[in-house]
């Protein structure tokens, strides 16, 4: 570490360091000679005090020499150039935005027993902040998705930025560098400084950079990355699902965990633990090849744990590594196998595949959904006790009798669920007359959009009209919440014929779940009494549509059955990733919803205080509140307060939040994707050295030496006065 001086000529003053010694020598020469008879006494006295006296003299001489030497040294303004990992650009006057990566991956430990990488990142950001020139403006932005910027405008108040930096905590969210860099660029857009720099303090995990452009925009701020990461190994549970296990009996449950090894080293006998409702129920091992993945299937039985409830918390945990956040994953297990569904076949056929309810029954039975299905004919219905069913499906029933209509009305108003699909056999007038109380909208004319493939329209030889398709899905409705945003599985369905609805004024409790592209309702829901009704304006067989053979038909029917039965949605709805919003149903008697977060904190949501949201939700068939603070992985329990003061556990609305698997992948951002590798000019060049001013230390040493010299002299004088 070579030493440099701003004013080296002042070092001539170092000659003054010899002054104390010279004065000492001259003083000795000028000592008064005295012929003294009591030399023996004098020498004895001197022997007694000589050690202490000499030490004091030497100390005084040293202190005075130090003062005399340190003063010219301090005035020469010495400094040292030390190697620094901070960029040279930091020394310039500038407007800067520090983008601090607070995504979940930074919660990993830098080393076993060490501190989290986020601490390193924050320390690095602090060092950068302290090295910025005094007239620079700084803002602070966090890189995790959806997190507000702690200092959203350039500030010269360094203490404020440091305080915000110290207060920042590492989130469990995914990184969104695209958004963070856009935000930083916006902040710098209004800066008065010509020099604008974005410093990104990150572990350079590739996940989160998808939305960031690797090229620097013309005239845009320079981007400098301060890398606090490095290669790290990780093993993570990236998916967890629960499904029925018939081989385990009626209450059998299979929990399947998917584990990924992101390391080049294989993992032998990696331990896994299954917990159901917090209790360890199984332990297993799995071997993972390098960069490979494996699935582990646990079998268990729920009945010992159910306690009468229908929703349970399943959790699988693997042996911990440096990143523990993704070593555990949760899922909600919905016990819906107890739901009994009555399917009324309005157009039975001798050929099974041509039967009206063939696809419907297949959909309800498949995938382990666990519905108990009873199939019947319309004539048998009045004799049947409907109250034993969670839902009744009427498929292409021609003309409901008065008795049937009356029985169905009582059934629905009493809390039952009714699904109605139409077809060629439906007598519109009879339905509109007898089922008026149950139909969400009166039935209208049958509309033929195109010829059914393989069958030429009557009177025409060629029909070139395109079939109708569904409009984009509105996933806010709970029935559709489990579908992908683009409606994969439903969007491809073609509708050749469907029934139009008679227009009616908007009514509370009625909502259109699906529409055709032409705007006509495809699936309409309405609340009737304490029950629900769904009306599909086409067939559930391939007579009018090819929907039954599309991938979306199965989940649509299963979710419809659950929706009608008042059961919670599938796993995909009740398992969220960190940061996702959750719609929570509000019962008619609920006044307040309490959500107990994973860390034990409670949040209260009042439907009345969110009237606009509640009204919008009501338009889709039920009252809901939206919970957005899903900021930590874990189980979020839901309770409802009622008007009478009682609080009830809403296990069916409780949900789990898991880490986004993207944060588990330690893959680093490729060099050609790094924004600081783009030709951004000299700003990106890192300086290998940093200047460390030393005159402060020397000045402090002078002050201390003067103080010590004064104290020593004072002590000496006091000793003489006493003597």
């Amino acid at each position: 570490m070579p030493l440099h001086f701003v004013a080296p000529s002042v070092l001539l003053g170092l000659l003054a360091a010899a002054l104390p010694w010279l004065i000492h020598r001259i003083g000795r020469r000028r000592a008064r000679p005295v012929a003294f008879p009591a030399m023996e006494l004098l020498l004895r006295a001197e022997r007694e005090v000589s050690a202490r006296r000499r030490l004091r003299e030497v100390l005084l001489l040293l202190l005075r020499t130090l003062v005399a030497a340190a003063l010219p040294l301090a005035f020469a303004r010495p400094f040292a150039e030390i190697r620094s990992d901070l960029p040279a650009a930091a020394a310039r006057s500038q407007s800067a935005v520090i983008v601090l990566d607070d995504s979940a991956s930074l919660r990993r430990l830098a080393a076993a027993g060490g501190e989290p990488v986020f601490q390193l990142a924050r320390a690095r950001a602090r060092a950068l902040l302290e090295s910025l020139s005094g007239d620079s403006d700084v803002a602070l932005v966090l890189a995790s998705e959806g997190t507000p910027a702690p200092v959203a405008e350039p500030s010269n108040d360094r203490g404020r930025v440091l305080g915000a930096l110290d207060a920042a905590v590492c989130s469990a969210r995914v990184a969104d560098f695209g958004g963070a860099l856009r935000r930083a660029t916006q902040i710098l857009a209004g800066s008065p400084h010509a020099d604008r720099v974005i410093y990104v303090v990150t572990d350079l995990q590739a996940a989160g950079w998808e939305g960031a452009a690797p090229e620097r925009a013309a005239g845009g701020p320079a981007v400098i990355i301060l890398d606090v990461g490095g290669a790290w190994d990780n093993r993570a549970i990236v998916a967890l699902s629960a499904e029925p296990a018939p081989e385990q009996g009626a209450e059998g449950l299979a929990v399947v965990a998917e584990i990924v090894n992101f390391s080049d080293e294989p993992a032998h006998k990696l331990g896994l633990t299954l917990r159901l409702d917090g209790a360890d129920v199984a332990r297993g091992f799995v071997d993972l090849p390098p960069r490979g993945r494996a699935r582990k299937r646990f079998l268990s039985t729920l009945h010992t744990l159910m306690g009468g409830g229908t929703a349970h918390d399943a959790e699988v945990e693997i042996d911990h590594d440096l990143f523990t956040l993704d070593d555990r994953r949760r899922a909600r297990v919905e016990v819906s196998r107890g739901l009994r569904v009555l399917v009324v076949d309005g157009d039975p056929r001798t050929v099974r595949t041509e039967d009206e309810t063939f696809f419907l029954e297949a959909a309800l039975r498949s995938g382990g959904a666990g519905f108990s299905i009873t199939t019947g004919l319309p004539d048998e219905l009045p004799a049947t006790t409907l109250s034993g069913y969670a839902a009744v499906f009427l498929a292409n029933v021609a003309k409901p009798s008065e008795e049937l209509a009356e029985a169905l009305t009582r059934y629905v108003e009493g809390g039952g669920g009714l699904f109605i699909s139409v077809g060629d056999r439906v007598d519109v007038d009879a339905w509109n007359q007898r089922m008026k109380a149950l139909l969400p909208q009166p039935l209208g004319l049958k509309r033929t959009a195109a010829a059914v493939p393989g069958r030429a329209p009557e009177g025409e030889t060629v029909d070139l009209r395109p079939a109708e398709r569904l409009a984009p899905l509105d996933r806010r409705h709970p029935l559709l919440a489990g579908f992908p945003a683009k409606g994969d599985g439903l969007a491809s369905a073609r509708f050749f014929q469907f029934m139009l609805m008679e227009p009616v004024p908007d009514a509370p409790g009625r909502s259109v779940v699906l529409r055709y592209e032409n705007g006509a309702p495809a699936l309409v829901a309405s609340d009737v009494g304490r029950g629900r009704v769904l009306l599909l304006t086409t067939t559930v067989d391939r007579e009018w549509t090819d929907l039954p053979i599309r991938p979306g038909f199965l989940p649509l029917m299963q979710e419809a059955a659950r929706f009608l039965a008042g059961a919670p949605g599938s796993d995909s709805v009740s398992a969220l990733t960190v940061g996702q919003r959750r719609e929570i149903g509000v019962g008619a008697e609920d006044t307040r919803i309490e959500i107990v977060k994973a860390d034990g904190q409670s949040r209260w949501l009042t439907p009345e205080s969110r009237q606009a949201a509640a009204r919008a939700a009501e338009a889709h068939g039920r009252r809901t509140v939206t919970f957005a603070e899903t900021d930590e992985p874990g189980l979020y329990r839901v309770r409802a307060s009622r008007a009478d003061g009682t609080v009830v556990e809403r296990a069916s609305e409780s949900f789990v939040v898991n880490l986004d698997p993207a944060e588990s992948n330690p893959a680093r951002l490729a060099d050609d994707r790094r924004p600081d590798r783009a030709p951004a000019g000299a700003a990106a060049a890192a300086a290998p050295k940093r200047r460390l001013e030393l005159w402060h230390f020397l000045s402090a040493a002078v002050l201390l030496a003067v103080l010590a010299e004064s104290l020593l002299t004072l002590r000496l004088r006091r000793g003489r006065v006493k003597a």
Partner: protein
Amino acid sequence: MSDAAGEDGRPATLALDPTDLARLASMSLRARVIVEGAFAGMHHNPHAGTSIEFAEHKEYAPGDDLRHMDWKAVARVERYYIKRFEDETEMRTFLLVDASASMGYKRSGVSKLEYASYLAAALGYLLAQQGDPAGLIVFDERTRQYLPPRTRGGHIRDLLLALEGAYAAGRTQPGRALAHVGELADRRSLIVLMTDLLDAPEGADGLGNRLRQLRSRGHDVALFHLLDPDEVELPFDELTEFAGVEPDDARRLLVDPRDLAASFARESLALRERWRLACLEAGVEYRFATTATPPAEVLRSFLFDRGRARR
């Protein structure tokens, strides 16, 4: 002039400082002044002090020896007093004055040799007044001058002249002087040694033995330990290079005396205490004085204590 209050019931006296004494023209005059200062006020003391043989005054009565008339008392109080003596036998006294180089040290006032001379002169004068023979030995490492004890008329003048002419030189060796006086004193004598006891080669033990020998031979021995005030407290206040004063003493010490003052004072006190104990053990009367003390006070104290001891 000093007018210090008397201690232990002793009367307050008027006594000249050594510096004032030094201004007087002759040793004879100094001796008289010291003796008078020592005796001033003694008559008012119910426990009258004594000289070597002097006991007390009594009012004159017919038949008393007129030679013992105290004419000064007559002049002072206009009454006739006769001096009474306890022992009418002749008392031989040897005055031993150390004249080594160390005795010549002075920074202000008088040197130890001058001070010892004043004391010896006063004692000699007093003895002569009483008709007692007083001898003088001036010594350093050897006997430099010897006046045998006599009572003839001009003897006191010779003694005072010898004292006036004494000079400080050479190394000290009081043991040899004591040995010499032991040879000279063939019958019971009073031996008064005046020295600074610095750098005595015999040390306290050796000199103590000499003194004990003299005591065993029936001699009455008194030791006046004389020091300069500088040798008691080291009152210097600037960097000083100290050097030995006696011949062949090459010791040097460059020091800030303020650093040593406390320790030096302790060492000086220890030296005095050492000699006091040695004298006590040998049955020798030990008297310490600095050259700043009026000699009359020292003399009076000496005479007073001896008189009291006799009673």
